[in-house]
């Protein structure tokens, strides 16, 4: 007879006995797949430390150096620090605005009664189904009509406005706010707190994990985003972000792999760090947007 430990997809709290070969097979598969995830990234780093002639050779660099980094640091246009700061600025702005605008809207949807609340919320969720690319033509026309494609700082504003608040942020925060006991805000209301104070002093301090998840997911999404920067920053070199820079340099460098890999490393490491330290929020954020939805 099969034991419970054999059948349960999750054996938390279930005594783990036998099934040794299956366990061994599981480890083998998992390790193989994990290697498939990591080897390419390790290989990128190794290549970025090489010289051009040895780039394609399999093996470690004869004399590892940071020449490729030095090259992209100062001798490309825009330089690596500039690309980095552009990505950082845009990602930070989008992340902060999603937290602020998203949490205000989520508070209203979770706690305040106003006419049309349910319908408006459904419409917000429905926007998740609309592909970004479908909006390309009209959104560009709208921004163009507003004069937001003509001069430098307004190009930036165009991308920011498109990304400033996403339905996912509102949805995630609302779900979390609904889980906070209402007694807490009622107590605050009895003490004379207004709606904004309740939001600010009661809900926000309790919603740390959800706010962190939104901030991190939006930061990561914007940092990696290629589509809207490609649309609005194309002709404006000084605004290029790392992903768009990578794509452009790929055309310029062709087979000069070490500098290209150096940019790839710089584009990936900040997200990797964020991931290592805040892994929980990434995973919870992604899972929550799926399951509870």
């Amino acid at each position, binding site marked *: 007879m099969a034991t419970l430990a054999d059948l349960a997809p999750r054996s938390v709290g279930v005594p783990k006995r036998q099934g040794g070969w299956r366990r061994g097979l599981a480890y083998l598969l998992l390790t193989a797949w994990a290697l498939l995830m990591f080897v390419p990234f390790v290989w990128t780093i190794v290549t970025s430390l090489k010289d051009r002639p040895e780039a394609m050779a399999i093996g470690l660099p004869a004399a590892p150096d940071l020449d490729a980094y030095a090259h992209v640091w100062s001798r490309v246009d825009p330089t690596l620090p500039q690309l980095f700061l552009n990505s950082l600025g845009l990602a930070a702005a989008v992340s902060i605005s999603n937290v602020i605008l998203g949490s205000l809207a989520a508070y209203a949807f979770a706690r305040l009664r106003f006419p049309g609340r349910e319908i408006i919320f459904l419409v917000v969720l429905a926007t998740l189904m609309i592909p970004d690319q479908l909006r390309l033509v009209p959104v560009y026309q709208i921004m163009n009509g507003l004069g937001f494609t003509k001069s430098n700082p307004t190009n930036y504003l165009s991308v920011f406005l498109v990304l400033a608040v996403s339905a996912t942020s509102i949805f995630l925060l609302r779900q979390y706010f609904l889980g906070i006991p209402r007694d807490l805000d009622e107590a605050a209301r009895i003490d004379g707190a207004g709606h904004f104070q309740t939001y600010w002093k009661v809900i926000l301090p309790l919603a740390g994990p959800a706010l962190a998840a939104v901030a991190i997911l939006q930061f990561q999404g914007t940092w990696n985003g290629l589509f809207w920067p490609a649309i609005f920053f194309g002709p404006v070199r000084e605004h290029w972000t790392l992903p768009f820079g990578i794509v452009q340099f790929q055309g310029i460098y062709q087979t000069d792999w070490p500098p290209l890999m150096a940019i790839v490393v710089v584009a990936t490491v900040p*997200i990797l760090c964020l991931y290592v330290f805040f892994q929980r929020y990434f995973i919870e954020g992604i899972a929550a947007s799926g399951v509870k939805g």
Partner: protein
Amino acid sequence: MSASVTGARGRDFRGSLRTERGHEAVVGLAFIAIPMVLFLVLQIFAIGYAFVISFFDWGIRGAREFVGLANYQELLADRVFITKAIPNTLFLTAVVVPAQMALGLALAVIVNQGIRGQTFFRAAFFFPSIASSAAIVVLFTFLTQPQGLINTVLGFFGIESNTNWTNEPGTALPSIMALLVWTTSGTMMLFYLAALQGISHELYEAAAIDGANWWSAFWKITFPLLQPAHFFVAVVSVIGALQMFDAAFIAGGKDGSPANSLTTMVLFLYQSWSGFEFGFAAAVGIVLLVLLMSLTLIQRRFFGQTPSW
């Protein structure tokens, strides 16, 4: 209007239910005001606008003339659209979606066996999903060079290959599809993992008493109970596959080189847009939306369920 009046009166009649309600409504609407203006303009109005634009000969200087369905007719007669963009997109969706789902489910079930290092494996599998597509695709192009790591590894297993995988018409699309499966299976795994946590243990206890083995418990209990997750993952995955842009654009440029082998519907839309054929590009977008909506409806039929969002 009445809301602001009652809001002002609220100061005089503090505690009155009606004024309290009015005040709450005003605050509520104020809290959602900025996001709603953005959604209204950049999403809802945008879609209607795209629809309108698609009926015009609309170039860089704006609408020139109303052309009715001409853009759509032109689109359906466009060789690249009909013989490349649509087949490529459908082929990609038909292969990538089941592959992502199967792999995501397999990874989730294996990771969920209560093994040591579960957190590590989960994190490792999800990592490619969080790296930027630009970085991943450039890295992938490097690995798939004729002298690259992939051919070297193939040679190690006795398969001699000089293929420039992402740069030959026959292999470019399948390579990019493999890349997509590689990067996104981690996300699908997370969705499945979360759903697996919701399955009650008692079911497995009952199955164990009935003498079921692991394999039949998986097919008779786990798999059917994951139905909502299958639906969600399928929808997310189809939307992602139909909108595939980044990888095709980075690997094949705006033209989906080589020989349009990487031209997807969305890349085709981008091509038309960057050629200032805005009316035509808008028509491509509308066709894409129709396709997306019909596939979602078909999935709903297939899985017999409505999306809960």
